[in-house]
């Protein structure tokens, strides 16, 4: 009899998108062209480093922010620095590090411009540095026992809920620790810690929790899929061990236990992804 081992497990995370755009007035003085960063009027804690953000002008005029970009809107990955400034990147991985040289070159608008920023996250990424995870699904029981009953009687259709914990090694910037994730574009535990303190959009994410991730194309994978809300993020720092973080979350809406082929994207002959109208990648099952 065979058993599954933990190395076949993993967690994928999809950042949620905002329902309503954040509006700000971009003044010429808000853009620091030499340092490739700009500032916004709203509380920047509404965004998290690594978010893919669609920036658009309110009146449909050409967006005067990115050098060489002559369209009313565009989408880039963002990095928010310690002073609340925003840098734009074409690659997710580069946005996590926030290096000035990798950032998109900016231009200052000729006059104040009303723009909106809206997160447009549209893909799952693997979570890196996870030691173990636990996901519990439970169903409420409602006592229906009446006077005279000899056995306890329960209502069979109570509400379903889920909750779980991710235990991870702390990681926020691979360029510091030298862990080369390359093109894997992994999410790091620091993102979940930031979700707890994110304003406006809340602390939700979409998660895939793989119990067994088989090879692509083989119908043997098993995983849970759920929309989750981070409720607690704890970081423990000791002088004699690795820095670890524990993320507690609860599920919202439906929890699904799936079994079959891993979700995979459709590719073109040249290896590029086929995209849907909203820019997200087209899954094989679509």
């Amino acid at each position, binding site marked *: 009899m065979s058993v599954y081992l933990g190395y076949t497990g993993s967690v994928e995370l999809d950042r949620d998108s905002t329902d309503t755009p954040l509006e700000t007035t971009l003044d010429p003085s808000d853009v620091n062209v030499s340092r490739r960063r700009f500032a916004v009027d709203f509380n920047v804690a509404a965004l998290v480093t690594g978010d893919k953000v669609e920036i658009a002008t309110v009146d449909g005029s050409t967006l005067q922010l990115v050098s060489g970009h002559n369209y009313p809107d565009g989408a880039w990955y963002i990095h928010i620095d310690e002073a609340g400034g925003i840098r734009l990147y074409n690659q997710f991985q580069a946005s996590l590090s926030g290096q000035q040289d990798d950032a998109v070159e900016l231009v200052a608008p000729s006059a104040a411009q009303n723009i909106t920023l809206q997160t447009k996250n549209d893909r799952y990424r693997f979570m890196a540095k996870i030691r173990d995870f636990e996901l519990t699904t439970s169903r409420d029981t409602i006592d229906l026992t009446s006077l005279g009953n000899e056995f306890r009687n329960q209502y069979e259709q*109570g509400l379903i809920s889920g909750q779980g914990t991710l235990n991870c090694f702390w990681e926020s910037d691979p360029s510091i620790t030298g862990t080369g994730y390359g093109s894997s574009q992994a999410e790091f535990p620091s993102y979940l810690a930031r979700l707890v303190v994110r304003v406006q959009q809340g602390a939700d994410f979409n998660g895939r929790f793989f119990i067994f991730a088989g090879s692509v194309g083989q119908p043997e994978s098993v995983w849970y899929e759920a929309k989750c809300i981070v409720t607690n993020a704890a970081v423990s720092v000791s002088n004699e061990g690795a820095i670890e973080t524990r993320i507690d979350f609860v599920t919202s809406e439906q929890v699904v236990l799936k079994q079959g082929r891993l979700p995979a994207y459709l590719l073109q002959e040249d290896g590029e992804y086929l995209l849907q109208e909203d820019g997200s990648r087209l899954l094989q099952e679509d």
Partner: protein
Amino acid sequence: MAFYSGLDGQLYLDGSKIGKVQNWSLNASQAVLETTSLEDTDRTLINGVRSMSGSCRVFYHSNGDASDFINNIIKSGATSSEDGAATQSTTVLFKLHVNSTKYIEVYAWITGVSMSMAVGEVFSVDVTFEVSGHAKAETL
């Protein structure tokens, strides 16, 4: 059997056994009138009137158990929004059993029926009543 529990309890309303009762309670009290006089060193009392009141919770079930309580206090049949006249309520006979032979039987007015429908809960009816007169029978 030395002890009794919910396993042994029953509730009858107007002679019919209610099937889905989660609990019932009955409180009896004796009012006292003070007769303490000047120069008395200790408080003296005489008896006032006795009173009893109670409550029960009944799960609403398709067999209509809880409806017997609801219909006693909610009367339908009004012909317009200004129509304030409908059938009057009447006293009902509660028989509160500790087991099959030990019970208290009282006439009472149903003074409150509280219903709440909530996510994650079974629809149930909380009933309060005030006993009218002395107990009809008592075998405790």
